[in-house]
């Protein structure tokens, strides 16, 4: 150590910094900073991108102290299951304290990426005004702001390059936020407002597109009609990523013909999405660009019939990422399997989550895809039924899975052919796919599947469990077996105190644990919180209002409805609402 330290000291710090510039991954940089003090310091001052997986694990002050020169911050707030209405609304995840702290410390923030956080208009305004070089704002599944905040961003960020709003809940005040982009703004590279529900000023949009010659990615919302899309494409044939708004029109009209011609000119489009409101007969306009598409997202378009989808997909031979609805049916998936040999990621969403028309897909589709697409490594599949045999076949065909998420519409449906639990199928998947990092299981499952997961899923980092397992042993298998586990989320499963308290140190190696509707009692949570001071164990009550009374009546032997625990350096959080109690 001493020798290498003295050797390395021959290199001035600038050289080290230059070397470290090539180290881009967060984990690698974390490792670098652990080598020795000088490396720690060099790395500390040269780190520009910081990723914080749980915004309550640290606080802004510590962040700024640790990385004073940061320029890009990624934050994640609520846990994953908050997406599915399992978390009350005001749980937290506010970004304002972060922006405020960075603004006060004169951080030169250029990029902010937030996921599942609560963003307010004030925070957007503060953001816009405090950071003159701000370039990129990406909000994924965030909420809490209105188009007024967007207007503030548009008008104040002179060098804005990226404004990407993905699946946010925005209160659309129908203001003219698009017109707030000054005429001098020509730096936009990426603009995505597909989640906005209201009208936009299409004239301003056209002008904006016309003057931003570097625009590469544009995703419109459903209020933008086909005529405007056509004009935009004429202005911006250099687009790489296009998300259409409304795509219905009379196929015999002149506008449609113009659109077809405009599409033919767009040679660079590689990623296509949108179709927020689509008439199947207008689809042929898209065929010219299909041949070079690598990413296609049709998951917001339930109106396209299966045969039209199949026709479209037959044109898309180079697709690597396909997001689609289950209206495609098993037959359509067969077409995908035959056509899309480069497919790496497939997501099949349910078009009718609670019904069962003829639209749903079954295990046949999945098997067909696995047989036809050898490069498949990531799948999210909502299906009506599944069998062990199918899963075993899939595991054999595709050993390269990194993410495997299977969701049966009936959460505890057994094997459709044999009525057995789906343990063997998932067992085959984890055994065969050595690189699996994310797994979601569903269907009828016993403790056996967790034994397999613990045994074979060595690289597993995130596991989602719902309505599965028979006893505490299941959870124990997982906690003992998966060494790299970072996020474990469990709902409606019979895991109790014994499993929770068996290996308390494990939770400090993980980012978070979510357990809801399980058999864990308040007493056990208190014990855990006492023994592990660096964990925040939060008990979230159902009733948001009068949680005080609810809490008083909860006794140590009572079951806890929702528990969320995560490791943290800064103790219990200060902005917890009433219904959240940190033990």
């Amino acid at each position, binding site marked *: 150590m001493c020798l290498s330290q003295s050797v390395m000291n021959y290199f001035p710090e600038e050289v080290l910094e230059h070397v470290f510039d090539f180290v881009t991954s967060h984990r690698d940089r974390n490792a670098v900073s652990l080598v020795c003090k000088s490396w720690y310091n060099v790395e500390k001052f040269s780190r520009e991108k910081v990723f914080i997986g749980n915004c309550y694990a640290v606080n802004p002050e510590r962040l700024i102290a640790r990385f004073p020169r940061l320029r890009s911050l990624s934050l994640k707030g609520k846990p994953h299951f908050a997406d*599915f209405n399992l978390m009350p609304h005001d749980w937290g995840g506010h970004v304002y304290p972060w922006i405020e702290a960075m603004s006060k410390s004169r951080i030169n923030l250029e990029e902010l990426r937030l996921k599942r956080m609560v963003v307010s208009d004030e925070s957007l305004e503060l953001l816009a005004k405090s950071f003159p070089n701000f370039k990129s704002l990406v909000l994924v599944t965030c909420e809490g702001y209105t188009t007024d905040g967007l207007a503030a961003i548009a008008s104040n960020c002179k060098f804005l390059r990226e404004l990407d709003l993905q699946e946010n*809940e925005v209160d659309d005040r129908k203001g003219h936020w698009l017109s707030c982009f000054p005429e001098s703004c020509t730096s936009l590279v990426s603009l995505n407002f597909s989640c906005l529900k209201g009208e936009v000023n299409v004239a301003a949009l056209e002008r904006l597109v016309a003057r931003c010659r570097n625009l590469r990615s544009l995703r419109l919302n459903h209020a933008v009609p086909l005529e405007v899309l056509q004009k935009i494409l004429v202005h911006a044939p250099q687009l790489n990523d296009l998300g259409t708004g409304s795509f219905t029109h009379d196929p015999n009209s002149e506008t449609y013909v113009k659109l077809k011609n405009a599409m033919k000119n767009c040679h660079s489009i590689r990623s296509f999405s949108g179709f927020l409101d689509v008439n199947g007969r207008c689809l042929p306009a898209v065929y010219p660009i299909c041949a070079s598409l690598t990413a296609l997202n049709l998951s917001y378009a339930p109106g396209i*019939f299966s045969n039209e989808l199949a026709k479209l997909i037959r044109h898309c031979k180079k697709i690597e990422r396909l997001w689609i609805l289950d209206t495609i049916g098993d037959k359509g998936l067969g077409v995908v399997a035959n056509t899309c040999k480069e497919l790496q990621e497939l997501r099949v969403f349910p078009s*009718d989550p609670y019904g069962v028309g*003829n*639209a749903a897909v079954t295990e046949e589709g999945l098997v067909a895809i696995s047989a036809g697409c050898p490069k498949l490594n990531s799948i999210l599949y*909502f299906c009506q039924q599944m069998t062990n045999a199918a899963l075993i076949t899939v595991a054999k065909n595709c050993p390269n899975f990194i993410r495997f998420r299977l*969701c049966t*519409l009936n959460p505890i*449906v057994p094997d459709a052919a044999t009525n057995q639990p789906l343990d063997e199928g998932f067992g085959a998947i984890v055994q065969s796919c050595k690189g699996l990092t994310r797994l979601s299981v569903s269907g009828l499952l016993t403790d056996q599947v967790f034994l397999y997961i613990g045994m074979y899923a060595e690289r597993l980092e995130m596991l989602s469990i719902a309505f599965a397992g028979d006893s505490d042993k299941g959870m124990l298998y997982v906690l003992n077996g998966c060494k790299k586990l970072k996020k474990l989320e469990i709902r409606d499963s019979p895991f109790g105190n014994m499993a929770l308290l068996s290996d308390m140190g494990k939770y400090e190696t993980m980012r978070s644990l979510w357990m809801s509707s399980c058999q864990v009692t308040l007493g056990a949570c208190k014990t855990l919180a006492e023994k592990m001071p660096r964990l925040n164990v939060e008990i979230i009550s159902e009733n948001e209002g009068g949680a005080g009374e609810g809490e008083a009546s909860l006794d140590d032997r009572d079951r806890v409805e929702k528990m969320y625990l995560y490791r943290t350096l800064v103790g219990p959080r200060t902005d917890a609402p009433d219904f959240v109690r940190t033990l």
Partner: protein
Amino acid sequence: MASASDCISQTGPGLKERNYFGFSDCSSVDRSTVSSAHLESKNNMNMKATELRLGLPGSQSPERDSDFSLLNSVKLDEKPLFPLAPSKDRICTLSQKTVASGNKRGFDDTVDGFSESKTTNFSEGNWMFNATGSDPGQAKLAGNVISIRPSGTQLAIKSEVPAKTLQESTNKIIGTNTANAPAAKAQVVGWPPIRSFRKNSLVTTSKTNDEVDGKPGPGALFVKVSMDGAPYLRKVDLRMYSAYKELSSALEKMFSCFTIGQCGPQGAPTRKMLSESKLRDLLHGSEYVLTYEDKDGDWMLVGDVPWEMFIASCKKLKIMKGSDAIGLGSSSYQVLLHFKAKKSLMYPCFVWDLAVYQCFYKESFRPDYGSDVPECFVLMSDISFICLLAFSCVFLECLLRLRLYLLFILNLDFLVEAQ
């Protein structure tokens, strides 16, 4: 064949089974044995998986499909059949010869029949049940027609079974009751796990497409399907289908979980699978008909109008017990529904007549019987006049709908137009 109720009742102690309708029990037997086998493997599960299988998508025994495909290929050439006791004779005269073997949904055949039935258009307005209730000539029709209205019984069943369903489904996991699942439907909060943004976008798309009137093309057209005796409703996308047959087979699959078969109806059950008359006989025993609520809020029989028109006007579907419908022959039922569907002149006629009576007859034209005539005679003469008015309304209606009346009275099938 063991009776269906016995089979099913073995499968779960905590579950109150109901024989929902008189369908074949071949499939039900399969289902029950499957479910009991499954049960044995899990001690602490009181039918939960089965329960959910019964209730939720994807849970049907494979044997069903082969039967359905056979039967779906049958074409019924005529009007729907309403197998109700008083009209047995009439239905028999509607050329039913043989009886189907099991495995068939009543409404499926019904719907098949609908696709060929006539497309009579009536310009009259709504059949006003309540108003015509006092009309003796119409009493039978009206009274029975009134009973077509969805009964309150469904609600009772709804509240009972879902509570159990939810109980069973959560028993497996926790002993306590979860506040998760809403009572009216056997759904779980947060399942399937899709983001609310995505869910909302699907909903809005289907809503906007529901408002598209009569245009073929974009979007899904989701309508609720309820079934008498089922604890929760389903939704189907009408645009997924292009004919009544497809719709009926899909509904059949969807609601198969509620069907518990019975032996085929009485009569001579020859085992020809493809005889349409046999299907009608099955309907005769099987009691379920498919109706829909149209834009005007009237409940109509599915299958009368061309498919496109049906899609454009259908707001809700309902699979109701035939016994809730009138106790008359199928054709007559259809006649009635046609009456119901179209604006009828009968009611205005009757009101007019009554007004005339009130104003004129009583005062001016009543024959002067003299004071020694007992009161009852006067009363009877009044009543007879009212009857005369009523019959004149009927006659007026008859004149306007002569064809259907001939059909009704004489069962002249050839008058029914093929659709």
